[in-house]
């Protein structure tokens, strides 16, 4: 790469960052205008938003935990996207991971395991099950040529309803019925299976998922940019036919990358269970998988982009929830803001990708 192209690249990257910022700021301004249109004093809404997003140690930790989930799903999206594949299955992978983690956490004996195996084992189970669920997308793609967008979407719906079903039936994960008011949800998982808190203080529930998430983000960046597997994925994505001619086994790469994406989604599900909610219930995820997908979409292949987007969305979501609770602003406002960001970035992709087109 000569000096001139390197400079063009830097300029292009800056343009992409500026465009993304403009889209986010524009969407937030639109959100404020909508708040005004609803008739809520803007100051109240902004204060409620800030309060819910970072106003207390608890709020801050909750936002970061949320961002962590989006990061994991977004990383899975970016991995698959390197091979030009679109994984829309995060929501289902979260559900499957959470089901697996709950089953293992509640299994007698697991809580008594030594050296932290009590919380590690459920996470591993979530990774494997989420991974297999994800690998299904890849298998369908390479065996029958099913479009991965449709299959991963359908698997998302199926996973979400599997979770719903598993907490409805006592034969599965529903807590034993003790009275008519027993809710259709699982028992709370035993303490040793919960993720240990970093601060040791329930007032700021940052858990061990955070360092793990950082390690995984670095790992994914290394895999993408510094390993043969990453190069293979790129080759498959750029030109599958040429990659095959060059001797790259395309099918295992596709199934493998979907396994990895599914494992990350499954892990996200186990973190939501073991780090935050502690019991499985209907509506467990409330669209986190789709938020993570959007984060992946916005990141344009960059791991740093995933982390930045996940933080943005984690804080926006937390703030949005609090706006609904204390300032009477429907949290669907957050969906409008997200939708505008996605549409704006998708529409401006051509100007960000001039670099790719010229190459």
């Amino acid at each position, binding site marked *: 790469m000569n000096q001139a192209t390197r400079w063009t690249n830097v300029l292009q990257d800056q343009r992409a960052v500026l465009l993304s910022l403009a889209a986010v700021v524009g969407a937030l301004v639109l959100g404020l205008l909508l708040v005004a249109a609803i008739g809520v004093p803007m100051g109240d809404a902004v204060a409620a938003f800030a309060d819910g997003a970072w106003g207390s140690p608890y709020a801050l930790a909750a936002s970061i935990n949320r961002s962590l989930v989006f990061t994991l799903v977004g990383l899975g999206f970016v991995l698959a996207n390197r091979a030009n594949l679109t994984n829309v299955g995060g929501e289902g992978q979260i559900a499957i991971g959470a089901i697996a983690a709950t089953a293992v956490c509640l299994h007698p004996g697991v809580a008594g395991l030594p050296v932290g195996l009590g919380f590690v084992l459920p996470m591993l189970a979530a990774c494997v099950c989420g991974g297999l669920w994800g690998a299904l997308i890849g298998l369908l793609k390479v065996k029958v040529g*099913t479009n991965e967008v449709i299959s991963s979407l359908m698997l998302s719906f199926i996973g979400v309803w599997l979770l719903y079903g598993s907490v409805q039936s006592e034969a599965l994960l529903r807590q034993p019925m003790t009275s008519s008011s027993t809710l259709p949800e699982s028992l709370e998982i035993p303490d040793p299976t919960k993720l240990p808190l970093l601060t040791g203080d329930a007032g700021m529930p940052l858990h061990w998922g955070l360092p793990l998430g950082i390690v995984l983000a670095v790992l994914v960046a290394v895999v993408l940019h510094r390993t043969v597997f990453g190069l293979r994925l790129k080759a498959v994505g750029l030109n599958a036919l040429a990659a095959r001619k060059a001797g790259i086994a395309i099918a295992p790469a596709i199934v493998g990358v979907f396994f990895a994406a599914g494992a990350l989604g499954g892990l996200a599900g186990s973190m939501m269970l073991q780090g935050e909610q502690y019991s499985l219930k209907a509506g467990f995820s409330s669209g986190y998988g789709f938020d993570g997908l959007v984060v992946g979409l916005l990141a344009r292949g960059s791991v740093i982009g995933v982390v930045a987007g996940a933080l943005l969305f984690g804080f926006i979501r937390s703030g949005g929830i609090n706006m609904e609770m204390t300032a009477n602003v429907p949290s669907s*406002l957050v969906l409008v*803001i997200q939708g*505008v960001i*996605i549409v704006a970035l998708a529409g401006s992709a051509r100007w960000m990708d001039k670099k790719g087109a010229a190459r």
Partner: protein
Amino acid sequence: MSDPASGAMAAVFAGSTLRLAVPLLLGATGELVSERAGVLNMSVEGMMLTGAFAGAVGAVYTGSPALGLLIGVLAVLPVALLQAFLSITLRANQVVTGIGINILVLGATTLAYREIFGGRSRAEVPGFDKWHPPLLSQIPVFGDAVFTQVWLVYLALALVALVAWTMRYTALGLALHSAGSEPKAVDKSGLSVTAVRYGAVVFTGVLSAIGGCFLSIGDIHTFTEGMTSGAGYLAIAAVIFGNWKVGRMLLACLLFGAATALQFQLPALGIQVPNAILIMLPYLLALLAVGGWWGGRVRRLI
């Protein structure tokens, strides 16, 4: 089916299968045309939801479901034009734009619904009455249960037939096919590929909006937040399963409709199947269908 009770039961099942298939069918027919012309619309879900919402609001404010339908169709135009502008003029990633529009519409309709109707959900809206078609509804056992439907059902079936005929036998159909498969040839012939594709996307929007209106002012006479809940995606799955052929697509929609109808039918028969399995069934069938479970070659879409 000699037992009159089971006959009546089967008739009710057939009737609700048809009723539940209609919104899917409308969305799928629009999607088929758009995909033939070379644009994948992941935003069918959002377009249906727009129709369902605007149709309901229109019906409430005008007091007339027919005007509601008209308003539902008009309201989808900006959404469809946005989709067309993004995917045709700006050549943006079609999956991304579709999902973005769906999220945007879900947020906007939920927000607007709460603003207009307050917190109380499920407010009754003026809806279409059922129509008793002459002769058909007089068929013993089946007639009334199957054919007494909102007239939109018959409009949908007529539209599907019309689209099948247009795609197959007319110059317009040829132009749509060519815009997808031979865009350069279309340009040389003096037609604008862009115009053909814009038209196809707007057509998808109109049909999807009618499908959405069928949900809100045709079927249950109310609007609930996110009431399409995946119907648009099932419609796309039906197109893929149908291998871009109208007949098979119609079968797929009926199959998904039947799977949904089981939710109401099995409990009535006293058969205990977990609710979650029944709700999941259409998606499971769609997955098996696009996964080529029943044979037939499935083309790669993107």
